[in-house]
């Protein structure tokens, strides 16, 4: 079986197995073992199967696309920094491609056999050498077509490249750990649960059925949805699974939905995500309307049967050496007035089409379609802002802590929030430098704001939640400044250490029955496994390591981000603030993470009662911790021979992004630096040292405040009271949204409901009353007039009958007399009346 058939089969199965588990638990969950205990087994077996299939896919992938260190080095040497193009007009995109293959391309121009071979190579292994070729290897295809209308087509398909395979492994691996952990963590749900946090109106305690199987049912659906996003071959399919992830998060965040806080948090997450998805829909429509396709890769035109270029090929055409340009469809779509002018000039449709396609390059020069591509990119990014909890839509993520801790771990590492970063990475070729700048600034603001809030939080899960928001900001910023590999690399490493941190915090909460760090302390003595693994997680997230030698996984990914941001700020001095945010964020991250660890595990117990009850968690919970801790250490390593996550990611680097790119466009002149330039000596050394220094400073400060009380935390808080208050209140963002959006909405709702009650209800009540009045009048008329007439007729008939019956005397002789007299009378009358006729 060839690889282009094998990979979709393996990953498609890995994608569908959790769905099967969901369906099985949906129908048979309560009957699976005692109290639905078997549901955990079913769901875990399903996700383990997915993991196995994903690993098999990874092996298959590596078998035909080995990651080699040589290619990496070659490419590095081959890439030169691009100089800003002095003659750049407002719409020029000039990419200087220096890869050897690209040079070949230039020589061949297009139309030669080389171009064709390249095109076919898209679905075969034409790029064995990986990096030298301009276009990354990707397998594309459709399983099922949902809708075909003319040349428009919606389908369920796949787009498989190295990140797809890598994300499958990461998602299924972490989900497996979390499933196993949750089987222990959720055991309370096997029996009827008395929820002390629910206030009943009667004041009684609230008891409900356990929902063990429902938890695993939603978990399975969650994994299925996330894998659907990863494997999706087109944006429409991404959107469908995007929404499925949203609804799954709603189920799981609101798992304890009887608690007011949980149901509110679930609704908040859902509604805030809808805001982002609205932007995503706008982006989808811009692309759909202008290009008529949402496929990432090339597909088949349903009307002609010919190959049709996908989004990536349209935005970065092969014949332009993958330099970004506005696709002809968007140009013509945007230049509708010009097209109409041509159409009015006459000519048949074929001629018109010819004229339009001839005029498109000119229009492109004039700037038509630039805004549309910008809107499309920013629109898609809006969806990612919602899902990945970026400023200004990050408010839902800390509240999502209301869900059970395994859910937090899943949401915060491998699913949901990862989806946004993944989509930006997947969609990267279509994003213009302007969009990237927007992304970078949003990411920079997010990482800084969230990090500062995390400093003052006392809820252990909230600290981690804000740290997630902050780390997501790092990833977005990395992508925005051109660090495609750096951003996705950090996504992968972060998935491991953040799920580890969350599961550790879950273990702590499980032992202490509180989230408040001010009641913890000294737990290292009673919970060694949790304490050590959490220390590993903290070291990984701050990027600890021996500079230039070895380090935890975060060391590599964070250094890459820092280096890329530094290079970006060198080339774009006006955007130096981004680098400052990254470096400052690294310091704050180190501070709050070690504040958390010191407050929880080090020192002396602050609350003896809590400490006495604390105990190490069962093995089913600590085993995933150890496994994840190992991965949190090694996930960033590059093995001798070049194998590693970043090397694997490098295989899928979008075409045309390997080189530096300078544009002057909507947001001024921007240089998106080539990522390989950030590995250059000077930049790399400075970035690594900065990262090390800031992290060390953060840890030392945390130690000074919380380990050895050299500096009193409350003293510091008192010294900067306004800042402290500002941070404790989380920058007043929730209050701001409450004032700007929620309260006006409520006020409008009150006005409208008042109008409803006062005007509409009254109108309806008045109508009803009038109808009632008319009806009673009608009833009176019926009773008196109509009934009266009918009764009168009956009465008269009755009386006449009474009178007439007097004649019926029963006397035979009288009757005879009547007959005689009557007959005579008739005769007499007839004689008198008809005298003339008789006489005649």
């Amino acid at each position, binding site marked *: 079986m060839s690889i282009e058939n094998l990979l979709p089969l393996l990953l498609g199965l890995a994608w569908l197995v959790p769905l099967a588990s969901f369906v099985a638990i949906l129908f048979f969950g309560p009957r699976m073992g005692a109290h639905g205990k078997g549901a955990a087994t079913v769901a875990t077996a399903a996700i383990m199967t997915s993991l196995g299939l994903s690993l098999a896919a990874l092996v298959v992938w590596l078998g035909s696309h080995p990651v080699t260190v040589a290619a990496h080095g070659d490419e590095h040497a081959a890439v030169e920094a691009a100089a800003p193009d002095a003659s750049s007009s407002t719409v020029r995109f000039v990419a200087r491609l220096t890869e050897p293959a690209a040079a070949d391309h230039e020589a061949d121009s297009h139309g030669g056999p080389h171009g064709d071979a390249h095109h076919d190579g898209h679905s075969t292994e034409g790029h064995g050498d990986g990096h030298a070729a301009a276009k990354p290897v990707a397998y594309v295809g459709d399983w099922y077509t949902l809708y075909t209308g003319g040349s428009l087509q919606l389908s369920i398909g796949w787009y498989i490249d190295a990140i797809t395979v890598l994300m499958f492994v990461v998602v299924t691996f972490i989900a497996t750990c979390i499933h196993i952990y949750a089987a222990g963590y959720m055991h309370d749900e096997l029996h009827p649960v008395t929820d002390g946090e629910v206030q009943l109106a009667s004041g009684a305690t609230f008891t409900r059925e356990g929902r063990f199987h429902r938890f695993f049912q939603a978990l399975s659906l969650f994994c299925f949805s996330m894998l659907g996003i990863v494997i999706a071959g087109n944006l429409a399919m991404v959107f469908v699974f995007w929404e499925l992830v949203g609804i799954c998060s709603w189920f799981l965040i609101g798992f304890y939905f009887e608690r007011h806080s949980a149901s509110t948090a679930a609704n908040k997450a859902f509604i805030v995500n809808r805001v982002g998805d609205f932007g995503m829909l706008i982006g989808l429509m811009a692309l759909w309307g202008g290009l008529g396709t949402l496929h990432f890769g090339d597909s088949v035109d349903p009307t002609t049967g010919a190959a049709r270029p996908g989004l990536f090929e349209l935005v970065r055409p092969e014949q332009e050496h993958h330099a970004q340009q506005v696709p002809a469809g968007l140009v013509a779509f945007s230049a509708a007035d010009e097209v109409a002018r041509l159409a009015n000039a006459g000519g048949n449709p074929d001629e018109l089409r010819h004229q339009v396609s001839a005029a498109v390059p000119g229009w492109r020069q004039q700037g038509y379609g630039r805004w549309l591509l910008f809107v499309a990119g920013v629109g898609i990014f809006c969806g990612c802002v919602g899902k990945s909890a970026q400023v200004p839509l990050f408010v839902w993520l800390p509240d999502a802590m209301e869900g059970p801790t395994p859910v937090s771990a899943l949401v915060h590492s491998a699913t949901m929030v990862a989806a946004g970063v993944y989509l930006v990475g997947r969609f990267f070729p279509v994003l213009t430098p302007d969009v990237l700048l927007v992304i970078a600034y949003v990411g920079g603001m997010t990482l800084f704001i969230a990090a500062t809030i995390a400093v003052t939080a006392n809820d252990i899960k909230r600290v981690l939640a804000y740290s997630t928001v902050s780390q997501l900001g790092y990833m977005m910023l990395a992508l925005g400044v051109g660090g495609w590999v750096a951003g996705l690399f950090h996504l992968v490493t972060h998935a491991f250490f953040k799920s580890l941190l969350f599961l550790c915090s879950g273990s702590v909460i499980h032992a202490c029955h509180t989230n408040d760090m001010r009641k913890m302390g000294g737990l290292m003595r009673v919970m060694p496994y949790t304490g050590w693994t959490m220390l590993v997680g903290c070291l990984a997230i701050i990027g600890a390591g021996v500079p230039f030698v070895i380090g935890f996984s975060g060391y590599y990914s964070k250094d890459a981000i820092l280096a890329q941001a530094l290079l970006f700020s060198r080339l774009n001095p006006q955007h130096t603030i981004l680098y400052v945010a990254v470096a400052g964020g690294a310091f704050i991250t180190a501070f709050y993470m070690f504040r958390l660890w010191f407050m929880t595990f080090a020192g002396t117990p602050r609350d003896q009662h809590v400490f006495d009850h604390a105990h190490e968690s069962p093995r089913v919970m600590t085993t995933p911790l150890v496994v994840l801790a190992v991965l949190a250490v090694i996930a960033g390593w590059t093995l001798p021979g070049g194998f590693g996550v970043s090397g694997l990611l490098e295989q899928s680097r979008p075409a045309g992004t390997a080189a530096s790119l300078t544009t002057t466009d909507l947001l001024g002149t921007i240089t998106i630096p080539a990522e390989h330039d950030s590995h250059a000596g000077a930049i790399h050394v400075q970035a690594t040292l900065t990262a090390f220094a800031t992290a060390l400073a953060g840890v030392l400060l945390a130690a000074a405040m919380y380990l050895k009380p050299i500096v009193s935390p409350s003293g510091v808080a008192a010294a900067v009271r306004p800042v402290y208050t500002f941070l404790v209140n989380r920058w007043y963002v929730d209050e701001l949204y409450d004032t700007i959006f929620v309260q006006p909405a409520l006020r409008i709702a009150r006005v409208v409901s008042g109008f409803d009650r006062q005007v509409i209800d009254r109108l309806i009540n008045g109508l009803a009353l009038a109808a009632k009045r008319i009806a009673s009048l009608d009833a009176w008329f019926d009773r008196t007039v109509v009934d009266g007439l009918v009764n009168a007729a009956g009465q008269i008939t009755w009386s006449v009958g009474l009178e*007439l*019956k007097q*004649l*019926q005397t*029963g*006397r035979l*002789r009288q009757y*005879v*007399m009547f007959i005689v007299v009557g007959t005579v009378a008739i005769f007499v009358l007839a004689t008198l009346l008809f005298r003339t006729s008789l006489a005649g």
Partner: protein
Amino acid sequence: MMLIATGTVSVAHYLVVGAIMFTAGIVCMAVKRNALGVLMGIELVLNGANLNFVAFGSSYLAGEGRPPLGLDGEVMALFVILLAAAEAAVALAITLNFYNNHATVDVDRADDLRG
């Protein structure tokens, strides 16, 4: 009256006899209290009418030059006799029943269905 004076027996004579019989029957029906008397009055009325039929139908009485009516009159008379016989049978049965219930045949007492 003119026809009687001529001395020849004509239809008119029969009609006069029939009218007398009819009137006598009516009077009998009107004045008799005995149910059987009433029945006899009925017979008189019917036979008065019969006499008229026969007189009108007779070819002998029709006179010279006039076309006879055939047997129509006699047929009608036979019809009436038949009817009278049937009627008499029914009426006598009613009378007998009446007598069984009331021990009398006085028609003035037969007023159970009066209004």
